[in-house]
């Protein structure tokens, strides 16, 4: 039994409403992410502005000695003290991600981590306690902390330069990875919105084809063989 025109129209309208509400939900999530992005942006701008102010103040003091805190003092063998860690799935904070694949969450932290012995698993703890002690005694830290970048600029660095460093650390550890995560999540939601729109367009096309069979469409235009 063929469905009537009204039944087809009702089913199509319901499917369209479902698709639209799915897109609306995605857009709502997107707008929340945009709000977070804008807030983080404002925080980063403020931090950067203060950082430049402190750096300018430090340079103003150093100018008396004909010095400028810049690339002339960079250590040519510098090693990164703060590095990113990317973990998949996280299961909380960042959330979202592309359908199917759990999102990758970025964090920035001190490298090497301050105390590697702190957070081990509980069940292995008792067994490996003795081994750990032996290992620690046998192999002293193979990768000692690289030099503090402040030392590139001398032993007695001005206070504004230290303040600038503090702000830079705050930006790098707290704001930048969160901005990167939000930006990635926004890109994933954008993709989902585009896919949902495409799916809706396809469904509409299919519904249109079902309601007006080919003969009617072609016949109406006078193409019947």
């Amino acid at each position, binding site marked *: 039994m063929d469905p009537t025109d009204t039944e087809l129209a009702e089913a199509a309208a319901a499917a369209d409403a479902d698709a639209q509400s799915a897109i609306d939900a995605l857009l709502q999530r997107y707008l929340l992410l945009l709000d977070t992005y804008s807030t983080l942006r404002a925080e980063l701008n403020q931090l950067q502005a203060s950082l430049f102010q402190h750096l300018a103040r430090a340079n103003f003091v150093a100018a008396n000695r004909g010095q400028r805190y810049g690339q002339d003092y960079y250590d040519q063998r*510098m090693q*990164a003290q703060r590095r990113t860690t990317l973990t998949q799935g996280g299961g909380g904070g960042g959330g979202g991600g592309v359908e199917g*694949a759990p999102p990758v969450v970025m964090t920035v932290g001190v490298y090497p981590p301050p105390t590697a012995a702190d957070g081990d698993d509980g069940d292995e703890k008792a067994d490996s306690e003795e081994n750990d002690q032996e290992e620690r005694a046998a192999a002293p830290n193979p990768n000692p902390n690289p030099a*503090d970048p402040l030392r590139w600029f001398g032993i007695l660095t001005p206070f504004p330069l230290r303040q600038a*460093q503090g702000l830079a650390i705050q930006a790098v550890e707290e704001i930048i990875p969160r901005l990167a995560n939000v930006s990635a999540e926004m890109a994933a939601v954008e993709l989902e919105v585009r896919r949902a729109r495409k799916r809706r367009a396809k469904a509409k096309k299919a519904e249109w084809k079902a309601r007006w069979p080919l003969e009617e469409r072609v016949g109406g235009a006078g193409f019947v063989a």
Partner: protein
Amino acid sequence: MSAQTDFRDRQFLAVIGDEDSVTGLLLAGIGHVTPPPDNQKNFLVVDNKTDNAAIEAAFDKFSTERKDIAIILINQHVADRIRHRIDTYTAAFPTVLEIPSKDHPYDPEKDSVLRRIRRLFGE
């Protein structure tokens, strides 16, 4: 999927910017020079004499050649000089973030993320 598989090796932040921006971020300890003979740096100081080709080359190196970069920070006014390259960059890793500089405050109109938003709602 390939972008998802190699993300664990990405551990550095790269910077392309003016001297103050780079100095500020290097103070946080993100600067890294690989061992000889490569001696590859993860930063580029841009001034008036730096040509666009050099900026583009650095961006390409950080974004496609090197597999150890997770985030590229680039001054917005520097990004403007290679805007075509930034706007067509779509890879998941490394993430590109435009940051303000001392002389050029952040302009949301130029931000590649916010331009994407306009494209999404303008469709």
